[in-house]
């Protein structure tokens, strides 16, 4: 019996290890929608791997200046809906799964509304600034968040319940003094 269990476990582990070829399954960056942005002398094609965009749903963004990224650098700002607050000022970097363009990998915008992506580019033709205003992000998909969080908190409720039962049985407060003096 024990030998059979061990054999099954070994076979299962071998199957998992054998199928774990990490390079095989990296999702390609499939762009399904694009927008054009003019930043001074530079035309940037902004690509989206899902369209339309929904709040909290992550996707790949690509930022491809005409003529390629070689010899160019840039900054990206993201203005949240309504507030006008800019979510950081970050350097445009190559997309880890599409290294010939800049991008954001599996990145989500958290709230619905109209976002503005701002670009500041430096390159052989000097500096250029432009933006993609009114990028509409629809409501989040899936069940309401309070329901998801309620389901997620069940292990915590179980832990608190267990401590409460043990607490009621032992009444640890009565023994603290003795243990502190030990």
């Amino acid at each position, binding site marked *: 019996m024990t030998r059979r269990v061990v054999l099954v*476990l070994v076979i299962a582990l071998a199957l*998992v290890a054998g*199928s*774990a*070829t*990490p*390079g*095989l*399954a*990296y*999702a390609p960056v499939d762009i399904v929608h694009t927008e054009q942005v003019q930043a001074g002398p530079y035309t940037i094609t902004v690509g989206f791997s*899902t369209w339309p965009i929904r709040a*909290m*749903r*992550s*996707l790949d963004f690509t930022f491809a200046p005409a003529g390629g990224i070689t010899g160019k650098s840039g900054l990206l700002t993201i203005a949240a809906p309504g507030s006008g607050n800019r979510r950081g000022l*970050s*350097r445009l*970097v*190559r997309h*880890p*799964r599409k*290294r010939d363009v800049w991008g954001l*990998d*599996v*990145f*989500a915008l958290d709230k619905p509304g109209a976002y503005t992506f701002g670009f500041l580019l430096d390159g052989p033709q000097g500096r250029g600034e432009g933006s993609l205003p009114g990028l509409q992000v629809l409501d989040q*998909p*899936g069940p309401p*968040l309070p329901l*998801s*969080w309620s*389901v*997620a*908190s*069940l*292990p*915590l409720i*179980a*832990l608190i319940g*267990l*401590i409460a*039962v*043990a*607490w009621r*049985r*032992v009444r*640890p*407060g009565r*023994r*603290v*003094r003795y*243990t*502190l*003096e*030990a």
Partner: protein
Amino acid sequence: MGSLTPSLAGAGGAPPTVIAAGGNPPAAAIGAWLVQLGTVISLVGLSWDIQWHIEVGPDTFFTLSHLALYSGSALSGITSLVMVLRSTAAQRAGRPLGREVGGAGVRVFGGAFSAPLGYLLSGVGAASFLIYGLLDLWWHSIYGFDAVLNTPSHVALFLSILLTMVGVVVTFAAGGERTWARTGLTLAIPIVITFAPIPFTALSDLPIPLDPMQLGSILCAPTLLIMARMVLGRWGAVRVAVTLGGLQAVLWWFSSWATESYAAAIGLPLRDNLRASAPQLPSLIPFFALVVAVVIEGLLRLGRTGRLSPSVLTPLLGSAAGLLIAVSLPIQLDLTDPTTHTSAGELVILPVFGLVLGLAAGYLGTRLGVLLKVVDR
């Protein structure tokens, strides 16, 4: 569901299995340490996975760090199941195991199983990890495969792992004064200190003036250090703090090394915008836990000399420990990531949080320590 009815040692008139010479039944030690090995693998896997997403990015279900996470829970879960079945079989044969094997027995499914409390907790945590893994898959199918910590499915997975880690603490505490148990507990508590702040990321969207994981550190580290002192006795907090430092050093080295070596091995480049900052998970572990532990030991020594009454001692222990952890956070942040800035407001708020959460930590830590002291009785 089970009922918390102690039913093993001495139940039904049958004496508990006699402990082998030397007081260390091998199966009890092996079972406890195997479940602990699972939690260590999970912790290492998580630290590696976080670092992978920061430094490299692309991942699949089968990246090595993911496999470490899954296999850690699998090892803990399978071992817990074996120990529960073993306990049930022994109970049915009229030779119940002693309570040093995972603690008091709990009747599960109307008495169909007799599960030692520690193994029940670690097993339920591992089973819960499996179920929430399916939920996580569903979540990603709706929301995409982003690598943020604070989604409901990720927090549920963290809570499941935490449940397993708590089960390990209970299992080792049940071993009482045996060497394998005390050594195991000296590692199990630092593992919980490292891991417990992570589920606090669930509070990220709430309007609190601190990083939720810092909040978790300020509450959990003092609670668990005080608990360690209560259950392990003199110098227990110091031993746990030293072990915590060792764990931090290992994770610090391993997380970056494994990430960069693995990326090189499979031909993936590092991200362009990497800053020279410390590995994320180990840099969240309190740097000054040893100072806090020494203060706890010192205050308890004052208590023993009669200069501090127990009613003063508990809140004093907690607030001192909480305050020290809280005020050391900006220093730690500055050491690990010099580009961050702690605002004047945060400098005022941190000590307040330290005192308030520290008071809670004193109350909880002393009482959880008492609960662990009696888990084998």
